[in-house]
């Protein structure tokens, strides 16, 4: 069941889009082998751009580099990076069945047909979609699509799994249950994973570490695996205090203040709801928004 993951190292990666929009300031980032990192932030903060640079869908500005296990892949196109990617819209191929979608990477790699069939069955079982192999894509529910997208991404045993808002197209109830399932699956695979989200509870539930982003910068990277609770409290406070989601100057705040605010976190719970619109509303606005490259 265990997959092999690669450590990801980004050095000085920046991105300026044509027209001069600076989507990402020069950023260093290391994701350890087998680690699950969340990129958390509001839309337009550069988290998707960062993910796309890791994937190879965007090239960093000159001077930036991306390495997998120390091997420089900056100039390698995405199809040679051996990563798995789950897109916000899932991007399943409508001209193929579920099974063909999942086996596509293996067919490209010219694996023998029997091996492809075995592996497809295996990942379908992992993602709990056994029995759907011959379905057409437009006959699937939202949750099933999400599972197929995940199964397709891990079928090739990629070096890293990159997920762009993997749950945001689902309705609230489904999102909760799939979130936990996704967290369990990623941990079972012990694969290096980077996922983008704007939902801090999702980030907390799935990730080993959370990188909070804003305005093209990583503001903070927090918490190793066993250290989630303090981070959760601190982040929660940043989200809710004065309805200012990411306090611009929180880094300059003396640690004692931070602790004091952290201690008052319990009282913030109600405020979180003030800052966050009710889930259903957030969902809808989210789905309508076209896939934004800066997000």
């Amino acid at each position, binding site marked *: 069941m265990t997959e092999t993951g690669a450590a990801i190292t980004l050095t000085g990666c920046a991105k300026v889009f044509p027209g001069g929009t600076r989507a990402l300031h020069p950023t260093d980032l290391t994701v350890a082998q087998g680690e699950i990192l969340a990129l958390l932030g509001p839309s337009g903060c550069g988290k998707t751009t960062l993910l796309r640079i890791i994937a190879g869908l965007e090239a960093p500005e000159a001077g930036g580099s991306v390495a997998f296990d120390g091997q420089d892949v900056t100039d390698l*196109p995405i199809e040679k990076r051996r990563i798995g990617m789950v897109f916000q819209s899932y*991007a399943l191929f409508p001209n193929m069945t579920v099974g063909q979608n999942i086996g596509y*990477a293996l067919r490209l790699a010219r694996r023998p047909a029997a091996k492809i069939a075995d592996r497809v069955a295996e990942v379908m079982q992992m993602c709990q979609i056994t029995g759907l192999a011959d379905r057409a894509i437009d006959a699937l529910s939202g949750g099933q699509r999400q599972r197929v997208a995940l199964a397709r991404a891990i079928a090739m045993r990629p070096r890293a799994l990159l997920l762009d808002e993997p749950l945001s197209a689902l309705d609230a109830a489904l999102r909760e249950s799939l979130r936990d399932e996704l967290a369990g699956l990623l941990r079972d695979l012990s694969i290096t994973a980077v996922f983008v989200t704007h939902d801090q509870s999702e980030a907390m539930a799935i990730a080993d570490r959370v990188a909070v982003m804003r305005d093209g910068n990583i503001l903070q990277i927090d918490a190793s695996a066993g250290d989630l609770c303090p981070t959760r409290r601190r982040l929660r406070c940043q989200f809710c205090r004065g309805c200012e989601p990411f306090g611009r100057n929180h880094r300059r705040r003396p640690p004692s203040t931070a602790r004091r605010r952290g201690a008052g976190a319990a009282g913030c719970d109600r405020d979180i709801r003030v800052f966050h619109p009710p889930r259903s509303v957030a969902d809808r606005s989210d789905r309508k928004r076209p896939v934004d490259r800066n997000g």
Partner: protein
Amino acid sequence: MRRNRVAFGLQLTVTLLACGFLIVPAVLSVMAGVTANYFKGIAHGVTLKWLFEVWELYADSIWLSLLIAGACLIATLIIGVPAAYVLAKNPGRTSRIIEEFVSLPLSIPGLALALALLQLYGTWQGFRLSWWFILVGHVLYTLPFMIRAVLAVFSVIDLKTLEESAASLGASPWRRFRDIALPNAAPGILAGALTVVTLSVGEFNLTWMLHTPATKTLPVGLADSYASMRLEIASAYTLVFFIMILPLLIAMQIVAQKAQAKVRP
């Protein structure tokens, strides 16, 4: 209630009149084609004689039209599909300008276009006298229809993300085109292909200017038969034309409906 019935009656009358206005000339023409003697009327006898005579006189034109339509289809597929693909992948001002340029032949009268072609290639005797010359005109005229039809499908299926996901799975640019872009564009390609064939078979404007006595196509032959043959032969010719073009038109309708059903699942 009564008012409703009157309104319905009026609507029905107008609709029937409009249909009659459109259909009666076609029916008359077809009937003339199977009438033994037009001046005596259809009551004096029905015959297929004229149809055979048309075949004898103009079989070459019919075959040539089919040949040109087929070649035109192949050319627009080879040029148009990749062109639409590139335009869809690079949305931007340059693409828009190119798209407009490609559509330019539509806004110029076919005669003018033919004149331009004659000025440019008129001195290349071998080319000028062959059916290839007409083919060039037809491709110029039908290409925008193919590009537009394929482009429309590409803009519906979010080609960019589909290709990105194929790339993440290891697909080279060629495999992305072959495995993802082409199959998903199939309804648009089919619709474009039917349009191209129909237009090419029926094109008169341009072809009339470009043709030589040896390269008469179906519509040019029709004009010729009206000008120089018995009315019955010309009418029978119209019938042949109907027989050839109707299946294409019906197929076009079916494909268009299917494509629309796919867009709104």
